[in-house]
């Protein structure tokens, strides 16, 4: 793809670069040495706390009082409640398998081969249904476990996946509606999007959980979990719609006009010309919105759901484990970090790749 230059630029020896970069002046050398000392101290202290002086197994918990490091016994003893919440003990394998399926779905949708409407929707519908059947049961001889007993990592992933699967199509509708040529439609969609964007997510989740029973007639209310997911999905869609709209606006008008001249219908122009380019234009922003959404799933703990943050707090909530709150929080932070960091790195990778593509 890239043109190979006929003459390669002169290679600069690595030692020279290092010298220029780190030791160019006495002051710079001092900065380098101080930073290196800081990094080494922090890393050593953390490694010592987390791995060397730490206690690992449940049985060794009495040793924790003397130990200077972390007491991972609490994780060893209580990891099941962190990961599974109140899910029945003997069915934990279902929750694990469901998480693996959903994570695999998320990873697969990062592969460009899947980037077509048909493939992506098939992938996500399949992944989501498998997840739901595994968690909920009632089919293939699996016992029924209602959503009230879901918890931990599986609930976090379920909320994230459900919000994505509902929010993504909705965001496309909202973005197209806001760009409609009909003034009333454009205003209405604009008002809707701006209204939801001006509110904190928590107020929307709270309204969905606590207040919607007043607003909606009984037959429309559904379970509290589904109301919260619906509210979250609308919030997500409003933000994502603005990303997509930015992508749509960046398309040269000639593209759409060319489609018009060829006699394509509105639907054809949207699905064949506008959306593919809009997605390409704002892919990094779209991925970033997923990153933010994954972090924000933690907010549902406030409206009373037992996702991984709440189940973590429950893990050190009893008896002798109450003093080991730092270990549990670090453990949960690490789980979030793995998900969020990998997703955001992927977003950064896409950004670089697309920039190269544009030349």
């Amino acid at each position, binding site marked *: 793809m890239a043109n190979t230059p006929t003459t390669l630029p002169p290679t600069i020896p690595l030692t020279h670069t290092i010298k220029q*970069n780190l030791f160019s002046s006495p002051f710079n050398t001092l900065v380098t040495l101080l930073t290196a000392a800081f990094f080494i101290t922090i890393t050593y202290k953390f490694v010592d706390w987390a791995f060397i002086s730490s206690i690992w197994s449940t049985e060794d918990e009495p040793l924790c009082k003397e130990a200077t490091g972390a007491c991972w016994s609490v994780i060893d003893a209580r990891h099941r409640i962190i990961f599974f919440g109140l899910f029945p003990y003997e069915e934990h394998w279902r929750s694990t398998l469901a998480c693996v399926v959903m994570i695999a779905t998320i990873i697969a949708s990062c592969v460009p081969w899947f980037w077509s409407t048909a493939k992506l929707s098939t992938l996500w519908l399949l992944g989501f249904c498998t997840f739901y059947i595994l968690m909920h049961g009632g089919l293939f001889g699996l016992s029924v476990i209602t959503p009230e007993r879901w918890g931990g990592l599986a609930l976090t992933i379920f909320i994230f996946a459900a919000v994505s699967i509902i929010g993504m199509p909705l965001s496309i509708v909202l973005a197209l509606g806001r760009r409609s040529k*009909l003034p*009333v439609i454009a205003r*209405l969609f604009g008002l809707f999007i701006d209204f939801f964007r001006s509110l904190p997510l928590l*107020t929307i989740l*709270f309204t969905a959980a606590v207040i919607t029973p007043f607003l909606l007639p009984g037959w429309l209310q559904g379970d509290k979990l589904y109301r919260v997911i619906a509210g979250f999905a609308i919030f997500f869609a409003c933000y994502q719609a603005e990303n997509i709209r930015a992508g749509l606006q960046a398309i040269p008008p000639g593209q759409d006009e060319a489609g018009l001249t060829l006699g394509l219908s509105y639907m054809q122009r949207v699905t064949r010309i506008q959306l593919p380019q809009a997605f390409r234009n704002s892919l990094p922003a779209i991925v970033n919105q997923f990153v933010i959404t994954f972090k924000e799933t933690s*907010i549902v703990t406030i409206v009373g759901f037992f996702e991984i*943050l709440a189940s973590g707090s429950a893990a050190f909530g009893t008896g002798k484990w109450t003093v080991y709150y730092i270990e549990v929080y670090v453990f949960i932070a690490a789980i*979030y*970090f793995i998900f969020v960091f990998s997703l955001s790195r992927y977003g950064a990778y896409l950004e670089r790749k697309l920039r190269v593509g544009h030349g």
Partner: protein
Amino acid sequence: MGSVLGSRKFREIFFQALVLSIVAALLIAMVMNTRASLEAQSLTTGFGFLERSTGWDFSFSVLPYSISDSYSKTILIGFLNTLLLGFLGISLATIIGIAIGLIRTSKNTLFAMLGTVYVEIFRNVPLILQAIFWYSIVSHLPKPRQAYSIGDAVFLSGRGLYFPVFNIAIWSVAIMMLLVVAWLFFLPWLRERLNHSHSYHLIKRSGWLLLPVILLAIAYFARVPDTPLLNMPALKGLNFKGGMRMPPELSALVIAIALYGGAYIGEVVRAGLMSVPKGQIEAGFVNGLKPFHIFSRIRLPLAIRAVLPSLTNQYVQLMKATTIGIVIGFSDLFMIISTSINQSGQTLELLAILMIGFLIINLSIAFVMNTINKKIAIKGYEVKS
């Protein structure tokens, strides 16, 4: 007739009117349904309840309060608490953000990595988890008797942070703040009128000298009678008396928002610094400016102009994020409103107040930032962020 019905224009208008009436019908149905369900619980709608006294307590208030205060005053306190938390958190986050932005744009790769590690750690863990983490750290600090202290004036313990304050009335603080703001707005106006002349500089210099004197005079006359000017915290029995207390909830939230927001603002600042065209810096270099002057006279002024829009966005986001304070029991606007909803049942009215509250905050931030943006814009020069 048929041609009118079939015309594109007519179809468009008809379609829009249809959509509009469906939306209106849905809204009306929602309001009717709400009224019906509220009446079923024999609750009256309207804002009359705002005058009733609440009868419940909450954790923190910037103003003196009691449980017999009216709903309107309690909600106002919640609003002020949110403003205080947002102000403290955002100010600190901005300072951290500028530092991180500078570190990340350093030419020394190792030093720049320090900023990268900071950003990746604090940006990739949910704010709410960070808030809970800091709250458990702060509330597990030693008891007041074993508090950490700085010069016997500032004390840090499990009860929060205690520090000395002036014994002055609240109204005088408001007057002082107004005075400072008026002075800051007066200066640019004067500069335009007097066109940088000698008398302008004279007025400017004497103003800056006089301002602290006037402020101190106000503080002296407005102090609470029969008390020393400075109110020092001191250990009395099991807890501290006197001084100002920053409770653990507020401290933890300020730390969390400052660190989390600092990571995001650091990225904004970095993008701003990187957006300054190389030619501008090279021009300064060619003209023989020192590296510090290239930074303070060329890079920073241009970077500030580039980051303002995204900074506004970050401030609004952080302001909205303060609502998670409820998870550790900080009585901000959201917590006060949700408690009020539980206690009074005036759901729709209180929700409307909450939304208006956030609308006011967001619009104010946007207004202030846009005004600054317009004031400092360089004509004919635009940096792309």
